[in-house]
């Protein structure tokens, strides 16, 4: 924007910047490469600053703010870098609430900037005003409202720092419009001091020693790996630790891939739909070492039956997680990588537990995940196995929530970290497609598959437009059972087949829908066609949407019924042979 005295004031003018310019500058300084945003009145000054600036980052316009935040989560999950979101005030901000909660529950580093009405009218129920601080306080790691332009650059830095350090989490920064518009010629100090926020990264040697001593004595030790292992990038150390002491390893839903699923010591996922061998190992263990998992109730089942014989050791960077749900005998506060490294450095002589290892491995062989194949209709589990085979277990897989999510967790074997992107804590339908967009933008070189339900897909399917716009080669696979499958499963098992509001018989024609978005659509309804279709999908160099018509009444097994202990799983089958 030039003024009348252009030539005369040139040097001064270069110094004049708006709050919005300072904000854009902050993103550049944070080395942001991708921003997920949606404009609106309150953030127009910011969008104008983005237009004027030659910012070295891309801006992705999703079609709904929920899409922005899930995309940012997907991006954060696979890159380990913060996902950045910009939304306008009022409805823009409230549309983010689900995703912010999701990021909080799954500890994802996301930094959200919301526009706000001008400070002069805050509190007056002004047009598009919402109390973003009040709304997001319980669902963020921290939040800020900027009330003075001089604080803007510092707060932005603090927000990135808090979101990405310690236990990661979402941070919201609410920026009133007048602050974004205000003009200044000053440079503001961005140094910060957060005396109340000093995460413990290095574990206390005494706590490590106690854990090592317990391990040395244990006859039935088990490792439980959670998402904390991903955040700490501690997969290598976890593997070395498990191998050195010959420990059976179970994971949480979000911990999948932190330990190679194909490893001989891997028992797989534990919990409600986990493997029999994982749940039984925890049930019988005398020492359970939890590394970065939060003992969610879907993992533990009825708490009185969870690891009843075990001394529990818990390594976590968030001290408030330790002892929160499960009584913990040996707490270790610190980063998982640091803790595992320290444990590897200690010399201990373990009690011989080879018969225990053998027992757990036998369970794994005898009671694997199972399903029944038919020659006609597609079994959803087989579909997922086929995706696994075709991608060699190396794709990034995102999901919605429901049966397909659990089948993906059971039948896609994750052999490396940062490949599994699912909404674990909040269980958010509609997560899969936008998360896949974020993941693909964060890792352009990788194969990204979104395995979604016909229900969940319809919650955020408008984001197919983004897939097309950026020609993201995402493979979207709708596991179409014409129902809210997981709801139907519960109604069948626990509500005597009263299928109240769970059947989706009036689904749209997903192929035409794909075409409407300009994306290739393929329908597959016969089991025998699956291999060739899957091959075609992954050979296609661009986005594809698959409408896979699966057997409608398949259920996710095994399962721990609500209120039951994990040792009381139903739907466990012994291997024939």
């Amino acid at each position, binding site marked *: 924007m030039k003024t009348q005295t252009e030539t005369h004031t040139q040097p001064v003018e270069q110094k004049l910047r708006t709050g919005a310019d300072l904000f854009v500058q902050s993103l550049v300084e944070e080395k942001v490469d991708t921003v997920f945003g949606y404009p609106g009145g309150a953030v127009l000054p910011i969008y104008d600053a983005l237009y004027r600036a030659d910012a070295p980052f891309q801006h992705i316009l999703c079609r709904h703010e929920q899409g922005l935040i899930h995309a940012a989560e997907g991006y954060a999950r696979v890159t380990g870098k913060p996902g950045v979101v910009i939304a306008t005030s009022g409805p823009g901000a409230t549309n983010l609430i689900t995703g912010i909660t999701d990021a909080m529950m799954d500890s994802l580093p996301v930094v959200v900037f919301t526009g706000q009405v001008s400070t002069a009218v805050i509190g007056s129920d002004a047009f598009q005003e919402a109390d973003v*601080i*009040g709304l997001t*306080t*319980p669902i963020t*790691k*921290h*939040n800020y*409202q900027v*009330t003075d332009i001089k604080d803007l650059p510092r707060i932005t830095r603090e927000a990135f720092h*808090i979101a990405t350090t310690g236990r990661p989490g979402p941070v919201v920064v609410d920026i009133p419009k007048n602050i974004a518009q205000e003009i200044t010629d000053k440079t503001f100090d961005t140094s910060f001091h*957060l*005396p*109340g*926020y000093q995460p413990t990264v290095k574990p206390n040697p005494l706590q490590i020693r106690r854990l090592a001593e317990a391990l040395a004595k244990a006859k039935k030790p088990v490792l439980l790996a959670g998402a904390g292992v991903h955040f700490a990038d501690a997969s290598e150390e976890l593997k070395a630790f498990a191998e050195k002491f010959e420990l059976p390893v179970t994971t949480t839903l979000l911990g999948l891939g932190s330990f190679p699923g194909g490893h001989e010591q891997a028992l797989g996922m534990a919990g409600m739909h986990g493997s029999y061998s994982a749940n039984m190992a925890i049930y019988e263990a005398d020492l359970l070492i939890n590394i970065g998992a939060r003992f969610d109730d879907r993992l533990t089942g009825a708490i009185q039956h969870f690891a009843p014989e075990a001394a529990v050791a818990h390594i976590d960077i*968030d*001290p*408030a997680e*330790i*002892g*929160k749900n499960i*009584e*913990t005998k040996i*707490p270790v*506060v610190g980063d998982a990588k640091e803790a595992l490294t320290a444990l590897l450095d200690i010399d201990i002589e373990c009690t011989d537990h080879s018969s225990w290892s053998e027992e757990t491995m036998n369970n794994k062989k005898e009671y694997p995940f199972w399903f029944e194949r038919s020659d006609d209709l597609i079994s959803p589990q087989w579909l997922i196995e086929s995706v696994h085979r075709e991608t060699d277990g190396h794709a990034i897989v995102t999901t919605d929530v429901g049966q397909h999510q659990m089948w993906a967790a059971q039948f896609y074997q994750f052999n490396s970290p940062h490949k599994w992107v699912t909404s674990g804590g909040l269980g958010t339908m509609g997560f899969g497609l936008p998360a896949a967009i974020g993941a693909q933008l964060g890792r352009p070189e990788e194969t990204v598959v979104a395995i979604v339900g016909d229900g969940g897909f319809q919650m955020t399917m408008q984001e197919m437009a983004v897939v097309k716009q950026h020609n993201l080669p995402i493979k979207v696979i709708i596991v179409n059972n014409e129902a809210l499958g997981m709801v139907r499963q519960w109604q069948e098992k626990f509500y005597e087949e009263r299928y109240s509001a769970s059947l989706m018989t009036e689904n749209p024609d997903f192929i035409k829908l794909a075409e409407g978005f300009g994306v290739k659509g393929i329908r597959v309804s016969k089991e025998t066609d699956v291999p060739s279709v899957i091959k075609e999908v992954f050979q296609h160099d661009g986005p594809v949407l698959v409408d896979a018509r699966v057997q409608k009444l398949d259920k996710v097994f095994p399962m721990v019924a609500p209120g039951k202990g994990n040792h009381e799983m139903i739907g466990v089958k012994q291997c024939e042979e």
Partner: protein
Amino acid sequence: MRRIITATVQNSSGVLNRITGMLSKRAFNIESITVGTTEIEGISKMTFVVEIPDANKIEQLTKQLNKQIDVLKVNDITEKAIVQRELALIKVGSTSASRAEIQGVIEPFRARVLDVSRDSLVIEVTGKPDKIEALIDLLHPYGIKDMTRTGVTAFPRGKQPRQVQEFTLSV
């Protein structure tokens, strides 16, 4: 278990909301909260009285408080030698006849009359909560017309007895 917990916090906007929000989200039962500034600019101190069913929950409470970015220090002082005070203002019905009698009742409590009107007295009392309870009990027969209590504010005494049984935290 009734616990007295203090938290030293930075005076950022929304800090009280953040803390009470966390407590209600985690289903802690708050009996009282007092907040005020400290001798250091920008730093406030809160005193919580909370009713907590079990020991694990107490540990959770202090950990969750500590986790707040604005919180600098958390102290569970229940088991310590502490000074604790609460202020109450009590308006009781009185007639010219009962005034002197009431005066006699409140005197041992070192309470004061702040305001006198034709049919009521306003009494100020400070002390430990049980002392205030006791006075309220004694004033009941005269008819309590209005009452307000600040909740407890407290901190450890200068000198702690040697064998203070600290509440053991596992971390």
